[in-house]
């Protein structure tokens, strides 16, 4: 056991840092800090990473992955967080791709995987429905086999960045007469341009447009778009959720968030002194940092197990729960730190550009909306209560 980076790892870190410095678009940094990114921003950044050979570090080499060690992947994440690059949405590279690699046929792999890694297709996820949240298996969206096609009818919801997406992977019910709700579900890929697909925005309490309703009315999809076997989609859906959790700790980004919080707390005044000198506030930051250290080492232990081929098991639920709690606490403390300037709000108003009408310090502008927005993290990806059910069942055997 040791914490030393090898000289190769240190050299790798320097290489990544220098490359990000030279290649991450400055104007993108500016837009991200104001939360005004576009679909093109994601795809451009993905294309840039792809050209460097870093399009999907976690993928196996045969599909264009980097072949990095788990330490190198960790370093890469840390450096991206440090440079505050635009996080690549997980739907294509981290969620769909592992399912395709494990369960799709050769033609599907050859067609879809390159388009994900080279920044051609933007994917979104069709899992949740108005009546199927934590109880995902109760989903009702129907796919009926008619000749060479499936005809899909129903409604998905919470489709994150669905308004950007070219494609959606959809869990559909293909056998309404199955014995259990988990049986009779299929995993189908749908082109968002297909007639009958309609995306309607959902505005969240932070005023942002991130999620959507996605409606399917007599949507005709060729049977080739089925992944794996008909009626076995639940297995693939669960596989995806485990993969989703393993990246969800967000340690590197949270470290950056704590660093930012510390900077804010050392200039915001409380009784005439930096609020970081207020013992109650300082204690909250200290507890946050300590919990983050514990999470970091738990993630490192998980990575070590993975690199020995033991795989990310249900323990990844720990990373999801603790990681999201910490992300939420950072935004909560940031809002506390900015005091009264947490209140001014411009989103959706004519003065939105902010530059025309700057009120309060820059770092305060998004503090309240971000705090509000981050409440989603303990709900999505299997709510934190569902994660505790998973630990109880899969780890504790209850």
């Amino acid at each position, binding site marked *: 056991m040791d*914490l030393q980076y090898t000289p190769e790892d240190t050299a790798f870190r320097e290489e990544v840092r220098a490359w990000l410095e030279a290649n991450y678009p400055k104007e993108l940094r500016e837009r991200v800090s104001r939360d005004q990114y576009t679909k093109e921003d994601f795809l451009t950044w993905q294309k840039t990473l792809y050209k460097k050979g870093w399009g999907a570090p976690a993928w196996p080499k045969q599909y264009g992955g980097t072949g990095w060690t788990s330490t190198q992947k960790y370093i890469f994440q840390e450096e991206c967080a440090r440079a505050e690059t635009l996080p690549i949405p997980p739907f294509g590279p981290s969620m769909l791709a592992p399912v395709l690699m494990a369960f799709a046929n050769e033609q599907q792999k050859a067609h879809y995987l390159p388009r994900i890694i080279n920044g051609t297709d933007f994917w979104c996820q069709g899992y949740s429905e108005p009546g199927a949240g934590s109880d995902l298996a109760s989903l009702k969206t129907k796919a009926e086999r008619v000749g060479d096609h499936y005809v899909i009818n129903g409604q998905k919801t919470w489709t994150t960045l669905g308004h950007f997406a070219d494609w959606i992977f959809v869990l559909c019910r293909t056998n309404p007469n199955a014995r259990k709700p988990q049986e009779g579900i299929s995993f189908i890929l749908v082109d968002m341009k297909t007639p009958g697909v309609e995306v309607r925005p959902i505005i969240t309490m932070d005023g942002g447009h991130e999620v959507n309703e996605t409606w399917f009315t007599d949507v005709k999809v060729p049977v080739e778009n089925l992944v794996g076997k008909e009626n076995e989609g639940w297995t693939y859906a669960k596989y995806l959720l485990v993969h989703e959790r393993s990246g969800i700790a967000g340690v590197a980004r949270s470290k950056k968030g704590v660093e930012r919080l510390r900077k804010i707390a050392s200039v915001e005044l409380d009784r005439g002194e930096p609020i970081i000198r207020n013992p109650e506030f300082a204690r909250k930051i*200290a507890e946050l940092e300590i919990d983050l250290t514990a999470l*970091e080492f738990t993630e490192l232990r998980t990575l070590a197990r993975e690199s020995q081929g033991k795989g990310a098991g249900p323990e990844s639920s720990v990373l999801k729960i603790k990681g999201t709690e910490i992300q939420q606490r950072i935004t909560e403390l940031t809002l506390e730190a900015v005091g009264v300037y947490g209140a001014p709000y411009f989103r959706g108003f004519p003065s939105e550009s902010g530059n025309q009408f700057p009120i309060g310090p820059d770092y305060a502008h998004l503090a309240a909306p971000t705090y509000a927005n981050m409440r989603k993290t303990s709900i999505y990806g299997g709510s934190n*209560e569902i994660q505790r*059910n998973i630990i109880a069942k899969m*780890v504790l055997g209850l």
Partner: protein
Amino acid sequence: MDFNFTSEQDMLRDSIARLIREQYDFETRRKVAKSEAGWRPEMWAQFAELGLLGASFSEEDGGFGGGPIESMIVSEEFGKGLVIEPYLQTVVIAGGFLKHAGTAAQKEENIPAIAGGERIFAFACSEPKSRFDLNDVSVTAKKDGKGYVLNGQKAVVLGAPFASHLVVTARTAGGQRDKKGVTVFIVPKDAKGVSTRDYPTVDGLRASEIYFENVSVGADAVIGEVDNGFPLVEQVADEAIAALCAEAHGGMGVLNATTLEYSKTRKQFGQPIGNFQVLQHRMADMFMAYEQAVSMTYMVTLKLEEPEKQRKMAASAAKVQIGKAGKLITQESVQIHGGMGMTDELNVGHFFKRITMIESQFGNTDWHLRRFTELSNG
């Protein structure tokens, strides 16, 4: 970066686990804790024979070539068995002082004797009014010719009834709370003028109040620098914290497993209580707290060699996490066991008490949160 144990380390762990299983079962431990002697010297001799007492010393110092990771392994396994004998005080603490600051003669005299089980130490650092501040020292050591004369009282010195020797902090200069002016001495417990009042502790260990009345020691009793022993005390205390964290998470692992097992067998309302989601989520929280505690034990153990500030922050962070995890796991274990959790008969209460006491050894959660905050705010 590497989180794997070597095969020698795995073997060390296995041999301790076997010893605990075969000779340190809970009933035996309970009897020993209540016996007149309060410990088993023959068990100590077995620890020596198995190489546990020398495992964390380098070969040139007379040990078997290990370090903090070996201490962590021994402490964790001892934690699972609620081991009474003073491994922490003798090997981690006295051994730590000797490793870092012992003269060649001091090392030669003491380290082989520790590894061989012949010499047992206790650490006389706390005083009746010092609480957790190791710089708060009013025991005095006055220069007397070439040597020193010690006077004063040390409080709750764990393991002292079993010890042959004491590591003592004493003031050679400055005021009661000054960091400068603290000197560390090795004093034989049978030195003239040392008297003790021995007593049991709530968690089944033994401790002493120790009184020094004109105790004369030679200049060669000083370990480390005269007047400047405090940085060394802090370093060794951080190493002790790492070992305590390992002992605590060892115990927490047993509590979690015991509680889980109980929830699968205890039936109420016609079904195992582990079927109830309200208990499942609490046990999931206990599992997470345990995992975080293990992570923090590794973290602090691997950071003991870092520069002073980083080392202290690591030790404080770990002690805070282990303190919180310990409260959660001990309290929930008793709660989920219901009335049975309250009894002396089950091991649950015994782990409850030991882990509760660990929280206040070498600074409690609040004390370390404050130290962490002060260090991180510069």
